[in-house]
C-alpha cells in the first residue's frame, strides 16, 4: 500500500472518531452554568409617609437575585397597601435602585435578575400612597457567599 493511501486512511479514521466524539448529527446543546446555591435573608423594617429603608448584602459569585414582599402590616394587622421595591447599589446615605416594582404583600417573586458579584441593596419606599406608617418583610434570595 502506498504511503499516501495509508495516510489518507488514517486521516479518515481520525475525522470519523472526531465526529463521533463531538456528537455531529445530533442536536447541539448550549452548555449552561449551574445556578449557585442560594440563601434567603429577611429584611424587616418600617417606613413612614414618603419614607424609605434599605438593606445591603454582598454576593461573591454570579447568580440570580430575587425578592418577595411577604408582609405589610399596620399595628400588627395585615394591610393591602402598595409599596415600591427596588434593587440597586448603596450610594451615599441611600440605596440607588436601578429597577423597581410596586406591589402589595404576596408570595409572588417581584423581581429576579442574574447579577455579577458585588454589593447590592434592596430599597423599600412609599411612593406617596401610604396614609400611615407600616412595617414590612422582604425575603431576599441571593447566591450564597
Amino acid at each position: 500500500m502506498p504511503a499516501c493511501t495509508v495516510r489518507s486512511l488514517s486521516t479518515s479514521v481520525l475525522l470519523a472518531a472526531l465526529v463521533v466524539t463531538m456528537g455531529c448529527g445530533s442536536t447541539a446543546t448550549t452548555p449552561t452554568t449551574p445556578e449557585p446555591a442560594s440563601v434567603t435573608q429577611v429584611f424587616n423594617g418600617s417606613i413612614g409617609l414618603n419614607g424609605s429603608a434599605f438593606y445591603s448584602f454582598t454576593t461573591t459569585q454570579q447568580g440570580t437575585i430575587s425578592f418577595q414582599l411577604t408582609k405589610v402590616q399596620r399595628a400588627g394587622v395585615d394591610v393591602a397597601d402598595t409599596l415600591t421595591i427596588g434593587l440597586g447599589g448603596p450610594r451615599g446615605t441611600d440605596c440607588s435602585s436601578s429597577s423597581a416594582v410596586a406591589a402589595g404583600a404576596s408570595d409572588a417573586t417581584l423581581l429576579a435578575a442574574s447579577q455579577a458579584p458585588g454589593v447590592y441593596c434592596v430599597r423599600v419606599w412609599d411612593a406617596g400612597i401610604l396614609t400611615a406608617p407600616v412595617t414590612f418583610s422582604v425575603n431576599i434570595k441571593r447566591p450564597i457567599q
Partner: protein
Amino acid sequence: MRRLTVLGLILSACSAAGCLGSGTTTPVDYTIVSPVTEIFQGTLDAKGAPFYSFITGNPDPVRVTLASLTNATTGAAVSTNVTLGFGVPDGTTCKTTFSVTTTGALASQYFQVATPGTYCVIVADPGTVTTSLAFAVRIIHS
C-alpha cells in the same frame, strides 16, 4: 567608547534604582491619579450610627477624615469622642473592618489601599454623645 557609554548608563540606572547594595528602598507611591472627594455630612444623635456608601474604581488609597464635629444647635466646635469606622454596607448598617474613637482633626484617621468595590464610612456614638452633633467626614478615593 560605546561600551563605556553603556556601562555608564547601567551604573546611572543602578544608582537611581538603588541596586548597588546601598540599602535604600523604593518609596511607595500613594498618589491617586484622579482622586474623588466626597463629603459625608450629617447629624449624630445619642446611640446613632449614620453611614455613607461609595465606590472606588481603582486599587488606590482611601483617606477618611473626620474633619468637623460641632454642636448641632449652637455650631460650636466640640471635642467629643465618636467612633469613625470604615467597612462594607451590610444589612441596615456599615460592617466595619476598621474603627477608631476620635474627634474632629485635620489629619486622616484612616488611610488604606482598597481594592475596587463598594465601601462605607460610619460615624457612631460610642456612648459619649449627649446632644446632637453635626459632623463632616471627608473621603478621598479613586
